[in-house]
């Protein structure tokens, strides 16, 4: 398959089941909601070392938030429910409770309830106040700038993590420009996050390493500087490869995000140095969700 001069490999991305949740952070203005959201989703690029993968889903207008203030929806993904709950609570406590004027609300109705502010309330040292409004439980925790308002729980649901595609280009600037275009379009799709810095990964990994202590190491088959010394997957004109990783609430959500992302890359096309789209998989052994690139773009 070739789109606008870009070859779409006959391969698939391999993804695995995760647990996910969404929270809504509001603040006096969008600037402070975003600061809090960025803090809460920081150091959360990969479950390999961060404990979770997190990202900003989208900015919310005041009429979309529970308290009528500007807000940001964030999503957190983890391999298990316990890990997700721990990450959510730790991050909420350190990054939202502490952030000026913030409030924190559930972003998923239904699913299994996990603590959002349920335990953060103890920061109130007995002065905290519970309010059950329209069937939802809130905590008002007195803090130095006024009150921190938080919903007690949010919902945890089954999700999919690790959807991906690789952009192979003739130069590093062209690869990055294509990925930026893809991310801009993918951020318009609901229910997905691209957890890596700016949504883009330059250090894709393979399973295993020559060093026994490491479970993953550089994906040498796609490293352009190793073309002559390893079993490379790159043709001579490829000088740079970047990857976009997608976590989503369902396979269909990731399908949509991959489609618009790959299309944005292909729109730039061969004329802008984009040669191939490929994907990372582990022979089907890692996860049950397979995203076949040519089927997605058909």
């Amino acid at each position, binding site marked *: 398959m070739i789109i606008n001069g870009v070859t779409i490999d006959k391969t698939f991305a391999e993804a695995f089941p995760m647990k996910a949740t969404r929270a809504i952070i509001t603040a006096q203005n969008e600037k402070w909601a975003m600061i809090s959201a960025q803090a809460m989703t920081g150091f959360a690029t990969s479950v390999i070392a961060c404990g979770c993968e997190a990202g900003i889903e989208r900015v919310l207008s005041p009429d979309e938030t*529970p308290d009528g203030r500007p807000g940001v929806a964030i999503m957190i993904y983890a391999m298990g429910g316990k890990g997700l709950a721990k990450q959510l609570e730790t991050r909420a406590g350190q990054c939202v409770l502490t952030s000026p004027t913030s409030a924190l609300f559930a972003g998923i109705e239904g699913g299994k309830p996990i603590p959002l502010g349920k335990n953060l309330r103890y920061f109130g040292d007995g002065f905290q106040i519970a309010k059950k409004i329209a069937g939802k439980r809130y905590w*008002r925790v007195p803090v130095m700038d006024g009150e921190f308002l938080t919903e007690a729980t949010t919902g945890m649901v089954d999700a999919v993590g690790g959807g991906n595609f690789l952009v192979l280009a003739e130069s590093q600037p062209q690869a990055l420009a294509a990925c930026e275009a893809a991310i801009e379009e993918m951020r318009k799709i609901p229910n997905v996050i691209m957890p890596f810095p700016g949504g883009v990964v330059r250090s894709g990994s393979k399973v295993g390493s020559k060093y026994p202590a490491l479970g993953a190491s550089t994906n040498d088959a796609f490293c352009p500087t190793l073309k002559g010394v390893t079993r490379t997957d790159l043709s001579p004109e490829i000088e740079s490869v970047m990857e976009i990783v997608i976590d989503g609430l369902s396979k269909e959500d990731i399908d949509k995000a991959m489609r618009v992302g790959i299309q944005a890359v292909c729109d730039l096309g061969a004329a802008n140095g984009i040669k191939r789209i490929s994907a990372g998989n582990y022979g089907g052994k890692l996860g049950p969700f397979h995203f076949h690139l040519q089927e997605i773009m058909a």
Partner: protein
Amino acid sequence: MSTLTFTLKQATAQRIDLSPLVCQNLQDLSAADIAAIELQNGKSRRRVDELFTISGSDSQNIVIANSNDKLDFIGKDLASGSITVNGDAGAYLGLGMKSGSITVNGNVGIYAACELKNGLIEITGNAGDFVGGALPGNKQGMKGGTVLVKGNVGARAGDHMRRGQILIEGNAGDYCGSRMLAGTIAVMGSTGRYLGYAMRRGTLLLWNQPQLSVTFNDCGSHTLAFLPILFASFKSLNSRFADSTTAFNRVQRYGGDMAETGCGEVLVRSS
């Protein structure tokens, strides 16, 4: 199916206990069975059809027509469905009610919504003392649900209240929120003396400055984030509380009762 309507034939000298006439008790009964239910009337027991004219068959939507203030225990332990009372109601309206709704197009007596667990009670007129309170000797009053009173309420509204909300469009009598454990009482009109007497926790939300006891301390003016959410939850009510122009999020906060734990609050609308 038309609403199951009980029309009181004539006012009785003695009080009538209407607790058997709730939706869950009537749903599988025939018209004859319903007519044969015996109600306590003073010291005697009388069949429903002796006291009421019965029409309709939808036991999930009950209407009590030509009602008066001698009809006690309307909607006691109601678990589903709705009851509409056209006229006044007596004491213990919605006692221990678990779900559903009761609307009274008139005034109600003492202990309305006493130990209410959930559901909505709407009273278009006035309510007597101990709205949402606890039965004498019990330690917890209403534990959930919403009570809307469009008129005034008597003394000790929300006495021992544990959770839920009492919304009063008119005035509240003395000891409003006394011995309150938690929950919210909102009063658009005036409040009487000894507001929040011995309250431990909970919120008294007022539109007008009250006469406060010395055991309530001024905590200053604040903009509170939960208030817009609280007011938004009133939108579906047939009430002035649903009117967005009555909402506010800036309040003067008084903490108390300091003679108790001091974790309760009186919030008074401020500009």
